[in-house]
């Protein structure tokens, strides 16, 4: 994946470049708003990572102008501001996701991979399959090896989200945002309990684990 990082802090930018390289991606760095905008316009990238506060030009105006010009490359906004309204303005300007500094790199990486995937699959599948696990979005049924598994509505949405992003790391905050539509950070990690309950339902009586815990990052559903 080719990523454009527009970030004025040299150390943060270098760290991102190395970390992305380690994760198997290439990242170009722009150090200010103007060069960032021209690179975004001319280069072909899979994802933009844009700091909100930049010298010369702020991140939101870059995204807004790219969107006006018909550039639909998914963009993730990085910001030191984290309040609800800041997030709202960020997303309204055309950003696709919003991450507050300081962040864990695993969180950033997970979100970027999800963004790229989202841009790629425009057509929504009605049936998701991971190994012998099958989720039918229309009939709201889940089967494993042909055996029906009964899930609560929220468990269904949780599994649906994880299956849509099968093979990718999803973090706890991503789950809270996408399955519950809340953006706060719960004091206790309530998400873990939901996951373990779901895991119990889809893995009990089967030999092969499907729902994996990725240490320090989150969870991944894979065969």
């Amino acid at each position, binding site marked *: 994946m080719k990523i454009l990082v527009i970030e004025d802090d040299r150390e943060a930018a270098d760290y991102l470049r190395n970390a992305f390289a380690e994760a198997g991606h290439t990242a170009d760095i722009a150090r200010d708003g103007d060069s960032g905008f021209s690179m975004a316009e001319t280069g072909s990238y899979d994802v933009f990572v844009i700091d909100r506060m930049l010298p010369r030009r702020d991140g939101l105006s870059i995204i807004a102008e790219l969107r006006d010009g018909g550039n639909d490359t998914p963009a993730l906004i990085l910001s030191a501001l984290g309040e609800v309204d800041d997030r709202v303005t960020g*997303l309204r300007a055309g950003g696709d996701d919003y991450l507050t500094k300081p962040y864990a790199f695993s969180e950033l990486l997970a979100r970027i991979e999800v963004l790229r995937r989202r841009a790629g699959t425009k057509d929504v599948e009605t049936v998701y399959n991971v190994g012998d696990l099958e989720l039918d979005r229309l009939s709201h049924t889940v089967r494993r090896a042909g055996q029906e598994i009964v899930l609560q509505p929220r468990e269904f949405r949780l599994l649906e989200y994880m299956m849509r992003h099968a093979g990718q790391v999803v973090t706890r905050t991503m789950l809270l*945002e996408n399955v519950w539509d809340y953006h706060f950070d719960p*004091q*206790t990690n*309530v998400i873990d309990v939901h996951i373990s309950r779901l895991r119990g339902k889809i893995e009990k009586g089967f030999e092969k684990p499907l729902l994996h815990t990725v240490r320090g990052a989150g969870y991944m559903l894979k065969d």
Partner: protein
Amino acid sequence: MARLLSILNTTAARLSALYLILFAVCATFLVIYMTSLSARMLVGQTHEAINEEVRGLDRAYRRGGLPFLVRVIESRARQPGANLYLLADANGRILSGNVESLQPGVLDVMGWTERPFTYSRFGEGEARLDPRAREAEHKAMAVVFRLPNQIIVMVGRDLGEPEKFRNVMQRALVVTLAIMCAGALLIWYFVGRRALKRIDRVSEASRSIMGGDLNRRLPVSGAGDEFDRLSDNLNKMLDRIAALNEGLREVSDNIAHDLKTPLTRLRNRAEAALAGKQKTADYRAALERTIAESDQLIRTFNAILMISRLEAGYSAEATSTIDLRAILADVVELYEPLAEEQGVALEAEIDGAVTLQGNRELIGQALSNIVDNAIKYSAGSGETPAVQVSLETAASEIRLTVRDNGPGVPDADRRRVTERFVRLEESRTQPGSGLGLSLAKAVMTFHGGRLEFADNEPGLAVTMVFPAEAPKRKVETVFRKREASD
């Protein structure tokens, strides 16, 4: 003198001068107008009376000729306060009547004399010799005509009444103007001086506030006038600024005080990991602990920032019409597995929809903090740990209560639990930033509500009280994250 000059220089003084001039001009105009109007009216009446007189004399002459006319004139002239009557021959020699002498030339003009003339009455002649002679001369107006036999007849009327009236009015005008001027000057001086004094006091107070005495307030006299209103509003503004300032100071104190401890711990741990030769696994473990600790620090820091922003009131935080019941259901659903895992029965009574103006995220977070605490503290206490969440609507408020049957909070400490970083001694062993309830309180204040604590016997009952009519805030639809593939 300088003081007087400065009074003259005030807006109040300039305004009163302007009003004084305006009033004086109006009063003068009014008096002059009324005087001339009444004078004209009196003159008109005089005319009418004289004409009537002339008609009477005319009738007398026709009935009895000159001798009868003379008799009539003689008899009328003798009445007290009578009109002026005069009969003269063709040469102007006075033959009869009650006029002894008159301004020369009056009898030469036939018809109405255009201007008032002076005359003296018969029998007042001697008076002309003494110094008060002029008093004997009166002003009058008259009509003069000739009889067919060249006898001149004059009928007139004294103008003493209208003249006297005019004089009285003029004197009244002068006196009135004088009193008005004096009054205006007095009012001007006292009002101006008073206003000036109050402005001086306000300036003095603001100088001392600027000088650093931030608790000083502008003087309010209690009269409730515009000065008081202005001072009052400025004081409110100062209070607000002071509150913001205080909040800021508190935040920096808290950051300094409460973030330094975990930061020091973090640093010590890293130092300890570096010291001495250790296995790779130990390094890993130390680094993982470091990351966990910094995550906790970030969480605390975010909570402090959020509380301050909410408490400062300055926030463009979007509010919209939200369903409280849906939030309650969300949070209960979110915590249900955790409660089950901890062996706590989490129950909720939810019926009907309760809508209000608010921020779903903030209320959700506040409620989840309270439920989180309730589960945390009731877990492991007693035989059947339970947490109940209920929603009641009263006429003026909406009450969302979370009850637990944990150890509860002693009366004395109940007030303190929402203070930042306050974690009661017994709870030191539980994880958490100590900011959960402070944040909940800030969220409630932001929504115009409050947080109440009560004894649940045993346990704690925390109630989020919302006003039924939420305060008007900028209503904006909360923007939901775009889900391209959803």
